[in-house]
């Protein structure tokens, strides 16, 4: 199937590794992601946009762009996905907001196409994993971290239980990994303070890493570049701040999917990770 792809700012800068794994996996599975030529920043952390009209207008620009092609939009960043999807829902719910926004961006909005996260797409597109998996991720204990934005406010990913989402866990289990049960799946990592007040991130992300470690995870799987940078890039800072040792590699879910699908790990940009995942992967005989 063909989708309009909205990579978002991060995938173009700090998270090229994520972008690469999305590309590799979708190519392999024959999912066609056509990048929108004229997308605008979604305004990610809404908290930083003072005006609701603007916070709706930014994603609306992209939605309007996608309208042209009548294809569902796919985002791979949880924050972008959340902005696009909740804008989409809100505009559908309040017609007067829609009119206001249309005026502001000078374009009409159909609100008919869907907004999806790449995780949902993987889930919908592939029905039979067993037949295409080359290498089961046997014995890998993963903690699936959804972050706060993937599931809220309204079952953003259609998963039934927003406080205990299963979609990524199910995917991991299909890939042969063991996903652990843990209580911080949807706890916020504090991303919006990443620059203005990093100690907030150190505290909140520290709690997430600790919970994952305590629950027996060997690595964390994420679906968002912001989560990744907080848990991976800042992990050593967090360790210092909390005076704890984690050593938990953080993967994007398509990276693990790629490994299972037999894509050569050298095609993935795993070397961009700060916490080196290689020893773990070697230990588990996955590379």
């Amino acid at each position, binding site marked *: 199937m063909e989708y309009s792809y909205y990579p978002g700012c991060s995938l173009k800068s700090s998270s090229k590794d994520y972008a690469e794994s999305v590309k590799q996996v979708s190519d392999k599975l024959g999912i066609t992601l056509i990048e929108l030529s004229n997308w605008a*920043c979604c305004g990610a952390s809404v908290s930083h946009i003072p005006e609701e009209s603007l916070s709706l207008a930014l994603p609306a620009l992209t939605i309007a762009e996608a309208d042209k092609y009548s294809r569902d939009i796919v985002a791979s960043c949880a924050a972008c996905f959340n902005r696009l999807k909740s804008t989409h829902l809100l505009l559908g719910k309040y017609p007067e907001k829609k009119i206001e926004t249309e005026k502001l961006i000078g374009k009409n909005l159909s609100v008919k196409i869907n907004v999806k996260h790449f995780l949902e797409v993987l889930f919908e597109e592939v029905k039979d994993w067993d037949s295409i998996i080359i290498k089961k991720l046997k014995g890998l204990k993963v903690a699936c971290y959804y972050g706060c*934005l993937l599931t809220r406010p*309204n079952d953003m990913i259609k998963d039934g239980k927003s406080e205990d989402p299963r979609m990524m866990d199910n995917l991991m289990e299909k890939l042969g990994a063991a996903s652990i049960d843990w209580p911080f799946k949807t706890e916020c990592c504090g991303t919006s303070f990443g620059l203005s007040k990093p100690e907030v991130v150190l505290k909140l992300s520290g709690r997430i890493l600790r919970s994952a470690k305590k629950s027996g995870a060997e690595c964390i799987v994420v679906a968002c570049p912001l989560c990744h940078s907080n848990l991976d890039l*800042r992990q050593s800072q967090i360790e210092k701040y909390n005076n704890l040792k984690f050593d938990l590699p953080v993967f994007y879910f398509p990276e693990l999917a790629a490994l299972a699908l037999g894509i050569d790990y050298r095609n993935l940009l795993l070397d961009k990770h700060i916490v080196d995942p290689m020893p773990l992967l070697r230990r588990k005989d996955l590379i």
Partner: protein
Amino acid sequence: MIRNGISQTLALEIEKRTKINVFGCYQCGKCSAGCVFSYLMDTPPHLLMRLIQLDMREKALSSNTFWGCGACVTCSFRCPREIDVLRVINTVRSIAIEERVLSRNNSLKDVPIFNEIFMNNIIGNEHVNEFLLGANFNLKSLKFFKDISLLPVLYKKDKLTARKKASTRNIKKIVEGLKGNNGI
């Protein structure tokens, strides 16, 4: 001290903008309980709701709730009265900015600065360059060496380049439009 009755000006303003009826809030405090950022706030979310109910405009607008909020949507998602607390918080911030009310609490003063840069970044670029964003922030907030330890790592891992500058016409237009309406 509340002396002259309690009107609903602020509540009505929020209702007009968001369709949210704040009088549905029964002050259970679940929003604040679930908010992992409430420790940063002088006014946790439930108390902000109460201030709005009591029409304590000054206190509400000068609170730092909306600077402390990380937009994780937990409060809205878990509110038993189905109040979209986050939208209320965002709306209070809009009003505060429009009316140029300053935070009475200094501890989160950096956040608005970051916010301004972020906006300029978007307007100038149509998407965010995280490096520029960080650098700019450090300059403005006079914290030159913050996060500096991450820089070499970022550089080495090629995490600092960004997408080529695209057309910024669209966003500029929106911002112009908004200035006409509310004057950010």
